[in-house]
């Protein structure tokens, strides 16, 4: 299939990671005529962004921005998409980089699958859906989510009883339980790392209930609750299905906290909390929303106005770090905090639902495979951020998006363009040099002839 095609094609750039940054870089390269290979470890591209509800500060629906890009990536004649694949090793050679990629088995023939989901409907195993942060349900064989690209099912062998029902149900007979992992290689001139980020684990802080309190959720979970395709189809709390009347946001629940080993600011949490607050007050107009914060970092274009609008809409902002979250007899989370702004009183307030504004953590260590070190914060090290924000300390390999530190979508997209520029310029210059070299050789030969 694809590999054969690749042998005949010269691939110019490899983009690792199919999130918004990776997609934008790939598109910007492909639009210039470069052949791009994209490797994504999940079964669909779209990254973290595709799971979000609406985005700040425009409040337009997130999938309206992501899905067209996903679609463009999938359909672009210069982009070759490899999902459910992981990069195993990278070797440098005279032509650039030889990358060995592992194709994880989907246990079905990806070329034949039409994404009809018949297999999913017959599968007897209900599993927690990772796309919904384990709040919703899915099956052991499934299309990852409704807008997945490619629309191909994937079978989770870890949770399969091999009953064979899917095999029988599949109209094209593409299920193959005996599929094995496969390795293939890609030869490229340059690599762009767009490996993205992870979020703070919900159980990271014992003062916040160590993940044991079911009505204390994290920001990404709230995104799913707000998304029209969310697990419950409405905003109810995961502890007992109650529609919350009073919702609290705990800012810096994973950032700017030495006890968690994360001293940096995660950059997006203030804005996503404010955005979610605005969305909630749209769906649950009577709900009280409180945001406990230390500094509101509404720094971007239009962000400050967004923050002021939220304030004007009645979202309550309380300055003070929540020290402790416990739970009352009705599973209602109780937050304890000092309001440092107003008379410095210590208070305990009961809410129906608490959202931890968890921060961004590096998701991938580039050291073993790419021999690129991490900075103090664990994100990919960039030696000259003010001159070359996408250039790593290994020539020919570039970094973009949240792999290079916490970043919001706007900044990721801009940086993705910059990474595409850097790698394109790197390739142009390499080619120019090769031509100069060739010319020099030719002229030498001429001299020799004479």
């Amino acid at each position, binding site marked *: 299939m694809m590999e054969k095609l690749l042998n005949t094609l010269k691939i110019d750039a490899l983009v690792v990671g199919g999130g918004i940054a990776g997609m934008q870089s790939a598109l910007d390269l492909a639009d210039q005529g470069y052949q791009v290979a994209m490797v994504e470890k999940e079964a669909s591209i779209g990254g973290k962004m595709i799971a979000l509800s609406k985005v700040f500060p425009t409040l337009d629906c997130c999938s*309206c921005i992501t899905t067209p890009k996903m679609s463009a990536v999938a359909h672009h004649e210069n982009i070759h998409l490899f999902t459910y694949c992981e990069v195993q090793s990278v070797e440098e050679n005279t032509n650039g980089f030889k990358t060995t990629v592992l194709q994880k088995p989907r246990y079905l023939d990806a070329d034949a699958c039409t994404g009809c989901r018949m297999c999913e409907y017959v599968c007897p195993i209900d599993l927690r859906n990772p796309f919904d942060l384990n709040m919703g349900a899915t099956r052991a064989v499934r299309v990852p989510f409704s807008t997945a690209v490619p629309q191909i099912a994937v079978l989770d062998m870890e949770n399969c009883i091999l009953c064979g029902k899917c095999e029988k149900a599949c109209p094209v007979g593409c299920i193959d339980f005996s599929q094995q992992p496969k390795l293939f290689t890609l030869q490229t001139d340059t690599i762009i790392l767009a490996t993205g980020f992870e979020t703070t684990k919900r159980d990271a802080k014992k003062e916040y209930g160590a993940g044991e309190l079911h009505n204390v959720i994290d920001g990404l979970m709230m995104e799913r609750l707000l998304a029209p*395709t969310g697990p419950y189809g409405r905003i109810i709390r995961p502890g007992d299905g109650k529609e919350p009347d009073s919702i609290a946001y705990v800012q810096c629940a994973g950032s700017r906290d030495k006890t968690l080993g994360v001293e940096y600011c995660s950059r997006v949490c203030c804005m996503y909390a404010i955005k979610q607050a605005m969305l909630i007050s*749209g769906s649950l107009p009577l709900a009280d929303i409180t945001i406990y914060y230390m500094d509101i970092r509404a720094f971007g274009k239009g962000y400050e106005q967004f923050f002021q609008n939220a304030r004007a809409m009645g979202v309550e902002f309380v300055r003070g770090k929540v020290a402790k979250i416990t739970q009352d007899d009705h599973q209602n989370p109780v937050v304890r905090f000092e309001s440092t702004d107003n008379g410095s009183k210590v208070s305990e307030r009961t809410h129906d639902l608490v959202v931890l504004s968890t921060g961004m953590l590096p998701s991938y260590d580039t050291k073993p495979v790419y021999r690129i070190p991490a900075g103090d914060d664990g994100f990919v090290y960039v030696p000259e951020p003010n001159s070359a924000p996408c250039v790593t300390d290994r020539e020919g390999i570039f970094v973009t998006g949240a792999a290079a*530190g916490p970043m919001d979508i706007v900044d990721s997209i801009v940086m993705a363009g910059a990474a595409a520029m850097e790698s394109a310029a790197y390739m142009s210059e390499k080619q120019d040099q090769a031509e100069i070299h060739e010319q020099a050789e030719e002229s030498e030969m001429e001299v020799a002839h004479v």
Partner: protein
Amino acid sequence: MSESTNPKKKEEKDEEVRIGVYTCYCGGNISDAVDCEHVKKVMTDLPNVVVSRTDMSMCSDAGQALIEKDIKEKGINRVIVGACAPSLHEQTFRGTVARAGLNPYLYHHVGLREQDSWVSHGDYRGATCKALNLMTAGVAKTRLLAPLEPIRLEAEKHALVIGGGVAGLRTALDTARRGIQVTLIEKSPFLGGRMAQLGKVFPTDEDACATLDKLIQKVASHPKVTIFTQAEVTGVSGYVGDYQIKILQQSRGINNDIAEAVLDADMPKVPDAFNYGLTERKVIYKAYPGCYPPTPAVDWAHYNGEPIIVNGQPTIFYNKPKNFDLKVGAIVVATGFKPYEPRAGEYGYKELPEVVTLPQLIRYLELDKTTRTLTWAGRAVNDIALIHCVGSRDTEGVHEPQADGQVNNYCSRVCCTATLHMANELRERFPDTNIYDFYEDIRTYGRGHETYYQKALEGMVRFLRYRGIERPEVVAAPEGDTHPVLVRAKDSLSQGEEMEVAADLVVLAVGMMPTQVDELVQMLKISRGVDRFLAEVHPKLRPVETAVNGVILAGTAQGPMTIQESVAAASAAAVKVAVLLGQGEVQLDPFVAYVDPEKCDGNGACIEVCKYEDAIKMETVTINGKDVKRAVVTPANCAGCGGCVSACPNRAIDIQGWTLDQYDAMVDAIALDLWDLMEVPA
């Protein structure tokens, strides 16, 4: 250049019109306020409509696949989608339609989100009825759509970059590295922009000028870059791929042979804007020692024309401005920012000698990098107060407007980190000083920025937190006080107690304002946002492009940014230029005038009103053996304004894709009273 495509139109009109109508939920954005299912139902019954569907998000791959499938399987040959604003996804769906083998202009987009669901909360029935009318109008137009071919134009592989600051330089370099010719113009005599005025910069503490110099060297030595300093754009015409630019360049006035000597000569002095008026410079000057180009320049605005003795010779310098034209395919606007200038009396600025802006202090410290004792206004400085958000985050009606009557309600993004960076530098260089910092929120958001806050705290900088509406006040200390100025604020961290800092120096962390480029904005027809910075099309979909095809933004002209962000934005701008011009050809929408030769009687009314050169000509053609005059349009020269359409008494001329017939049909549909169709449970 393509031919006008109207001959084709006739044939295809005969074919049966089969319309597919798609109403998007937009993930709830539309369906929350509009009954999309009802819209779908009503659309099904309209003539020529073959399918009518809804989807959670039409623009998703699955949604697009739906349309493709209908085109292929149901023989749909016109498509209309009701979704977000056409500026966002009209192109997406044109692409979808094209992929399915249909002419992309057989697609029509109706904005149901920005112009209906988002502006009609609480009026579900009204919004739904409005959607019905709009969609019906859309279908009416769709019925009359004709296939069109985009106009293909050869693109000049040449870009103009306006602005020689770090963003402009970076865009120029990157564009040139992709093999595209670049002309970089800078208004002032020297490159470097605002970055040259900085000392050490975060997050690396590198020397700004050193970093900048490296970049300038690369740009200046690149064979594909031409640099013009003291140059300004005076005229723009044309369109993407083929812009004609008029440039006016002032003379430098100095030959290289006297470059050294002239600097030593005696001559009048003026306040040095490079040092924000802290010092004076001569009228013939270099901005800073290592500036580029290294040749001094004459400050024509201040040079009085009197002879200056150079090498013993009285010399008079003459400015002979040069006008020249350029042909470029794309324009990058990198006109940068200017620091906010507080009005007189704002925090004591210009009234108390001890009050300075942060950029001024940076220059002051750069003037003498070695001194270990800080003095200001003749006094040793022991206590320094820093005030954040000066000229940023102001609220209309609460804060006094600035000198120009405007209120900057945005956050200037960089000042927090810049201020803390300065606090740390002061702490390091002058360890005995006490530093106080008045803030509302510390916004050290970027990678490595929080470290500066941490360091400032560790360095015993005292932070006082005021609340937005209660800004600090700066007053002269009463006679006999230990210090010349007092800064007072209600410290929210001390239960709102009024605190007072006695200071020798008050530093205002001023925000960023867009450079005044009104004329350029008008010439380029680009737009500004409410914050008066230049506006992009969409912050996520097209973050560096303007609404004008071929005009691209780079750096702080677009909004406050750090150096790092400016550089990234500049590279992103360059990539757009490369995409646009790299292929040597650009495509334009075919929305231009065309003439129906059967209706045209050659009266020439259209030519009379047309303001575009060579857009419409009268030609003699032979019809039925008779030589008659008929109007003929040259598509590449036609802008598609339609002035000719209203002038023609015979309705013989129209704009492709926007015909009067289509408008009539839409108006009819909008005039329909559809309330009867609303008798469904809301």
